[in-house]
C-alpha cells in the first residue's frame, strides 16, 4: 500500500463507491435532474457559483473565529454541488439511527444507574471506569433517576464500497453542525436557486421548531413560559457562530457560565432586573466542565452548584453532562449484544466493524493484518483514527508497544473507503470522499432526524473519524421528498398567551455590559480618528505662523491625552516628522487605532445575538475593509487620510444603524449610554487640553475646539468670522441643541439613566448635577469682562467634570454589570486565578 494511505483521498479510486454514477457509465436516478440543472447553469457555471458561495459565507460571518482579529478566520465553505439522498434511503437511515439513539439512552440509563451491564460482564470495566467522560457525579445511587439523558444525538456515517451506510462515530455529548447545515441550505438556495427548481426537497426549519418544542417540554409543567439557556464558553470558542445561531433558532438565552448562578438549589440568569429562573440548559460546553464544585474547575466556563440543581430536579441539562461517555469508539464493538439485551432487537444500522483491543482475540486479529484496520483510542471519540501503514517504522513500533502495554485503551475499526461525491474543484467537478453527519432529536415520544445533514468533504491530509474539522469543504445534504408532498412535522404545542412587554426586562447583565463597552469603543475610535485627521490637515499645510505653531501645540496635547502620541515637546520641523510617524504607527500592529478597531470587532461579535443580521453584517464588513485598508497604509499620509475618513464613516454608520434598527429599550439604551459617556469624557478632556495655554494664545485653542467638535460651520453661521471665547464655549459646552456639545451628552445620559433605572434615580441626578456645573462654567466665561483669561482658567474645572463622568461610569458598571470576585476553589486543586466578569 502507498505510504500516504492514511489519507483517504489517495487510496485507489476503484475502491470507493461513487454517489453520482453507477459504475456502468450512467447517472444514478436521483442525480439526474440535479445534474441537468447544474449543466444548464449560466454566468460561469458551477465554479462561479462556488466563488459566490464562498463570498456569501465570508460576508455573513459564518465562521468560527472573530472577525477583525489579527489571525484572519477561515470562513466556512460549502460546495455548490449538494448531496441528494432518496427519500426511502433516508427513511431507512432515520429508522436505524433512531434505534441506535434508543439503545444509547438505555445504555446511559444503566451506566448512571444500576450498572447491570458491568455486573453481568456485558461491558468490560475499562469501557466505563477508564473512560474520562464517565462522570461519577452523574451516577444516581439513590433517589429519582432522570429520564431522557439524551435529547440530541448525531452520527457520522460512511458509505462503503458495498453501498451500505455504516456508523463511524456516535455523538452523544453536544454534537455540533446543525447550524452549519442550516446555513448551507439557506445560502445555497440564494446563490443557486436553479438547482432547487426541478426537485422537491424536505425543508429543515420544522426540525428546529420541533426541537424548540421538545426543549420547552423538559421544563416543569407548572412553568407556563419556560426559560432555556444555551450555555456557551463565549466568543473564543471555535463554534461560537453555531452557539449564537442556535440560541436564536431555539429562542434560548445565550449565556456564559458567569451569567448563571445557583441559589437555593435552582438556576438563575443574572439580568438587569435581578435573577430570572432558568428551567433548561442546553449545554455547548464539555460535560466535565459544567460544575467546578463537583467536576473539573475548567476556568470559569461552568456554573457552581449546577449538578446539585440537576439532582434536585430544578433544572434539566441537555444532553445530560455524563452523556459523552458513549462517544467511546470501542463501544461499537458491544452494540449488537447491547441491542439484543436492552431492546430485544437486532441492530438495524451497523457500525463500521470495530473491535476492542482489550480482548486478546481481537488484538491478535488486528495485529495480524494491521493494514486493514484504523487504530482509535478506546474511549476518546474526538481524536482521529490512525492507519498504521501511514506511520514511520519507529512511530508504528511505538504505537504497537503502547497497545501491548495498555490494550484496553485502544479500539480498531475496519478501514472503509468512503464513498465519493462530485465536488467543485479548480479542475472542474471531481469525485471526493465524504463523511455524512445526521442529527436526531427526541421529541418526547420518538427520535426524529433532521431531514438533511452535514456532509464533510475529506481533503488531502484530513484523517477520518475524530473531531469535525471546521475548515475545509462541506456539502448541503438534500433529502428528496416523496411524491405527494412533504411530510409535515407535528404541530407545535400551543404556547400560553404572553403578556405584552415593552421594557428590557430580561436583558442579561453581560449583554448590557458588552453593548455599553461597544458604545464606548466606537466613540473612542471616532475620537481618535477625528484627532488624527485634524493633525494630518495641519501637517499637510506646514507650520509657519505663530498661530499655526500654537494650534499644533494645542493639538499635540489632545493627541497625547488620547494616547496617539507619546512626546509633545518636539519643536520646529521635527514636530511634523514625529507626528506623522506617530500617526502611522497608530494604525499598525500594536497601534492605538488598530487596537480600537479590534476591540470594536470583538465586542460586535460578543453582542451578535442582540444585533440584527443587517447591523452585524454591515459592521463586520466595514471592519474587515478598514482592517485591510490599515494593512495597506504605506509611508504616505494620503492612504492614512483615506483610512481615517473610512473610520469616521463607520462610526457614523454605527450610530445611524443603531438609531434606525434597535428598539429603544435595553440593549440600545446601554449602547447609547456608553457612547454618550465616552464622548462626554473625551470632549471635556479635549477642550481642557486645547485651552490649556496663555490667554493671549487662546484663539488657536478655540479654533481647534470648534474643529474637534465638528462645530466650525455652525459657529460661522451664527457669529461669522469673529472668534470669541464666550460664544465658542457656549456652542461646544453648554448648547443642548448641539449633538457634539458636552451639555448634549450629559442630557442624553440623564434621559437614558431615567429609562434604565426609573425616574428620580441617584445616577440620573448625578448626570443632572454635572449639567448644571457645565452651564455655570460657561456662564462665568460669558459674564467675564476678560473672557480669554476666564477661559484659560477652565482646564482644571473641565478635568473635574471629566472625572465626574468617569465616576458615574464606574457606578453604572458596579450597579448593572458588577464585577464578581473571582471564584476560587478550596479543599482540592486550589488553582483558580482567572478573573471572571459577571453581575451579582
Amino acid at each position: 500500500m502507498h505510504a500516504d494511505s492514511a489519507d483517504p483521498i489517495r487510496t485507489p479510486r476503484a475502491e470507493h463507491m461513487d454517489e453520482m454514477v453507477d459504475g456502468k457509465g450512467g447517472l444514478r436516478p436521483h442525480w439526474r435532474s440535479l445534474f441537468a440543472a447544474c449543466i444548464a447553469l449560466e454566468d460561469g457555471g458551477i465554479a462561479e457559483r462556488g466563488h459566490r458561495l464562498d463570498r456569501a459565507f465570508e460576508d455573513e460571518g459564518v465562521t468560527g473565529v472573530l472577525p477583525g482579529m489579527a489571525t484572519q478566520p477561515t470562513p466556512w465553505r460549502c460546495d455548490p454541488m449538494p448531496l441528494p439522498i432518496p427519500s426511502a434511503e433516508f427513511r431507512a437511515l432515520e429508522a436505524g439511527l433512531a434505534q441506535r439513539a434508543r439503545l444509547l439512552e438505555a445504555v446511559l440509563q444503566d451506566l448512571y444507574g444500576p450498572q447491570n451491564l458491568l455486573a453481568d460482564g456485558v461491558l468490560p470495566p475499562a469501557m466505563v471506569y477508564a473512560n474520562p467522560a464517565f462522570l461519577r457525579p452523574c451516577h444516581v445511587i439513590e433517589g429519582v433517576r432522570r429520564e431522557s439523558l439524551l435529547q440530541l444525538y448525531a452520527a457520522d456515517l460512511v458509505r462503503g464500497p458495498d453501498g451500505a451506510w455504516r456508523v463511524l462515530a456516535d455523538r452523544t455529548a453536544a454534537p455540533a453542525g446543525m447550524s452549519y447545515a442550516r446555513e448551507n441550505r439557506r445560502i445555497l438556495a440564494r446563490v443557486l436557486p436553479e438547482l432547487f427548481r426541478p426537485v422537491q426537497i424536505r425543508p429543515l426549519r420544522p426540525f428546529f421548531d420541533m426541537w424548540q418544542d421538545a426543549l420547552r417540554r423538559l421544563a416543569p409543567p407548572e412553568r407556563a413560559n419556560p426559560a432555556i439557556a444555551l450555555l456557551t464558553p463565549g466568543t473564543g470558542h471555535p463554534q461560537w457562530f453555531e452557539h449564537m445561531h442556535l440560541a436564536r433558532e431555539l429562542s434560548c438565552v445565550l449565556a456564559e457560565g458567569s451569567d448563571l448562578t445557583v441559589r437555593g438549589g435552582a438556576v438563575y440568569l443574572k439580568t438587569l432586573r435581578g435573577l430570572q429562573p432558568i428551567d433548561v440548559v442546553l449545554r455547548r460546553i464539555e460535560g466535565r466542565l459544567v460544575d467546578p464544585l463537583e467536576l473539573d474547575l475548567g476556568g470559569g466556563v461552568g456554573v457552581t452548584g449546577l449538578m446539585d440543581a440537576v439532582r434536585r430536579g430544578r433544572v434539566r441539562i441537555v444532553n445530560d453532562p455524563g452523556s459523552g461517555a458513549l462517544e467511546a469508539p470501542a463501544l461499537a464493538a458491544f452494540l449488537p449484544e447491547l441491542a439484543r439485551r436492552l431492546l430485544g432487537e437486532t441492530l438495524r444500522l451497523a457500525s463500521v466493524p470495530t473491535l476492542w483491543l482489550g480482548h486478546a482475540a481481537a488484538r491478535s486479529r488486528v495485529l495480524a493484518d494491521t493494514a486493514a484496520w484504523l487504530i482509535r483510542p478506546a474511549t476518546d471519540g474526538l481524536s482521529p483514527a490512525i492507519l498504521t501503514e501511514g506511520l514511520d517504522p519507529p512511530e508504528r513500533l511505538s504505537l504497537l508497544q503502547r497497545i501491548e502495554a495498555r490494550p484496553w485503551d485502544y479500539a480498531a475499526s475496519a478501514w472503509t473507503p468512503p464513498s465519493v461525491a462530485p465536488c467543485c474543484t479548480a479542475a472542474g467537478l471531481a469525485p471526493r470522499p465524504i463523511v455524512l453527519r445526521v442529527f436526531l432529536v427526541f421529541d418526547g415520544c420518538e427520535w426524529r432526524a433532521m431531514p438533511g445533514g452535514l456532509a464533510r468533504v475529506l481533503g488531502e491530509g484530513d484523517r477520518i473519524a475524530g473531531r469535525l474539522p471546521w475548515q475545509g469543504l462541506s456539502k448541503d445534504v438534500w433529502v428528496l421528498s416523496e411524491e405527494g408532498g412533504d411530510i409535515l412535522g407535528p404541530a407545535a404545542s400551543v404556547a400560553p398567551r404572553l403578556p405584552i412587554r415593552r421594557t428590557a426586562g430580561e436583558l442579561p447583565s453581560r449583554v448590557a455590559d458588552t453593548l455599553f463597552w461597544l458604545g464606548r469603543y466606537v466613540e473612542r475610535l471616532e475620537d481618535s480618528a477625528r484627532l488624527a485627521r485634524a493633525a494630518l490637515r495641519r501637517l499637510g499645510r506646514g507650520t509657519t505662523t505663530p498661530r499655526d505653531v500654537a494650534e499644533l501645540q494645542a493639538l499635540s496635547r489632545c493627541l497625547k491625552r488620547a494616547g496617539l502620541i507619546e512626546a509633545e515637546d518636539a519643536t520646529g520641523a521635527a514636530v511634523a516628522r514625529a507626528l506623522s510617524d506617530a500617526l502611522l504607527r497608530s494604525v499598525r500592529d500594536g497601534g492605538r487605532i488598530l487596537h480600537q478597531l479590534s476591540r470594536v470587532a470583538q465586542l460586535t461579535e460578543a453582542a451578535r445575538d442582540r444585533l440584527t443580521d443587517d447591523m452585524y453584517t454591515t459592521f463586520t464588513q466595514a471592519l474587515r475593509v478598514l482592517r485591510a485598508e490599515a494593512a495597506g497604509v504605506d509611508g504616505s499620509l494620503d492612504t492614512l487620510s483615506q483610512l481615517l475618513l473610512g473610520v469616521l464613516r463607520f462610526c457614523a454608520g454605527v450610530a445611524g444603524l443603531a438609531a434606525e434598527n434597535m428598539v429603544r429599550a435595553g440593549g440600545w439604551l446601554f449602547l447609547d449610554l456608553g457612547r454618550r459617556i465616552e464622548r462626554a469624557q473625551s470632549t471635556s478632556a479635549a477642550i481642557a487640553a486645547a485651552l490649556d495655554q496663555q490667554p493671549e494664545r487662546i484663539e488657536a485653542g478655540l479654533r481647534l475646539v470648534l474643529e474637534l467638535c465638528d462645530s466650525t460651520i455652525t459657529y460661522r453661521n451664527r457669529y461669522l468670522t469673529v472668534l470669541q471665547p464666550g460664544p465658542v464655549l457656549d456652542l461646544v459646552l453648554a448648547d443642548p441643541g448641539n449633538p457634539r456639545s458636552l451639555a448634549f451628552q450629559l442630557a442624553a445620559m440623564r434621559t437614558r439613566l431615567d429609562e434604565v433605572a426609573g425616574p428620580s434615580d441617584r445616577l440620573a441626578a448625578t448626570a443632572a448635577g454635572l449639567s448644571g456645573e457645565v452651564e455655570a462654567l460657561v456662564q462665568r466665561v460669558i459674564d467675564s469682562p476678560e473672557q480669554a483669561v476666564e477661559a484659560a482658567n477652565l482646564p482644571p474645572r473641565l478635568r473635574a467634570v471629566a472625572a465626574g463622568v468617569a465616576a458615574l461610569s464606574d457606578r453604572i458598571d458596579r450597579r448593572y454589570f458588577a464585577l464578581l470576585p473571582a471564584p476560587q476553589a478550596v479543599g482540592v486543586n486550589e488553582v483558580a486565578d482567572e478573573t471572571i466578569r459577571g453581575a451579582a
Partner: protein
Amino acid sequence: MRLRVRHATRYRYTTPVDLGSHMLHLSPRCLPHQRVIWDRIAAQPPALSTSESLDHFGNRVTWLSLEQPHAAFDVVAEALVEVQFPAPPDPLATPAWEDVAAQARQGGPEAWEAAEFGFDSPMAPADPDAGAYVAPCLSRRRPILEALLDLNGRIRRDFAFRSGVTTIRTPVSRVMAQRAGVCQDFAHVMIAGLRAHGLPARYVSGYLRTRPPPGGKRRRGVDQSHAWVGCWLGPAHGWVDLDPTNDLVVREEHVVLGWGRDYGDVSPVRGIILGGGKHALSVSVDLDEE
C-alpha cells in the same frame, strides 16, 4: 471499640466571601464492621440550603450553600462510631497477585466493582517509578496479602513523615523522588504502584485514634484527616485496609469516612467561593475512645 470523632474545619478570609458552595465528605460511612451510632454536621454561618446524598462510591456527601457574605466558615462534624474490622485472612492462603490482577481486568459479576480501582485516576495514575518501587514485593506467584504486608512495611521504613514538604497537588512522581510526605502521599504512592501492576487499590479517608492503645507507640497522622489504602485480595477475600504511614492493618484504631480512587474523590471539604481574597485554613481532629 466505640470511638468519638470531632473534626473541625475553619476557613478565614481576608475579605468577605459573597457566595460559598461546599461539598463535604465528613459523615462516616455505614459498614458491616463500622456502626455509626449518631453523627451530625454543624456549619457557621448556617447554610441557606443543604442537601445530602450518596456519591458514586456510596460515600455520604453533604452540600452546603452559603449565600450571605461571611468572613469565616466553620464546619464541625461529630460522630460516635463502633468499629471492629475483622482480622485479615492468612496471607499465605490468599491468591497469587497475578490472578487478582487478571480477575480485575476481566470484570464480570465478582470483580467489576473492584476493577474501577485498577485504572488511572487524576491523582494516582499508574506511575512507573511507583511501579518499579512496588515490583520487588511482587515476586512470581507470591500470595497477594503477603506481598501487600511487605509493601506496607517498606513504605513505612523508606519514606520520611514530614509535613509541609508536599501539598494536596504534589504528584506521586515527586513524592517518589523525595521519599518524604504525609499520609495521603504515602497512600497515593502505594495506590499508584499497585495500579502499575494492574492491582486495584483505593484511597480511604478517615481518622486515626489520637492516643494509641495502652502500650502502643505514638502513631503518625493523628490530630488531622488521615488516609490509608484499601487493597483488593480477589473475590474470595475482598478488601483489606492497610495503613502504610504506620505499617498497620486497619482493625480498631481507624474510623472510615469513605473511599474513592484518590484524594480528589473524597476530599473532606471541597468548595468554590466567590470573593474572600486569601484564605487561611485550620483543621483539628479528635478521635478517642468514648
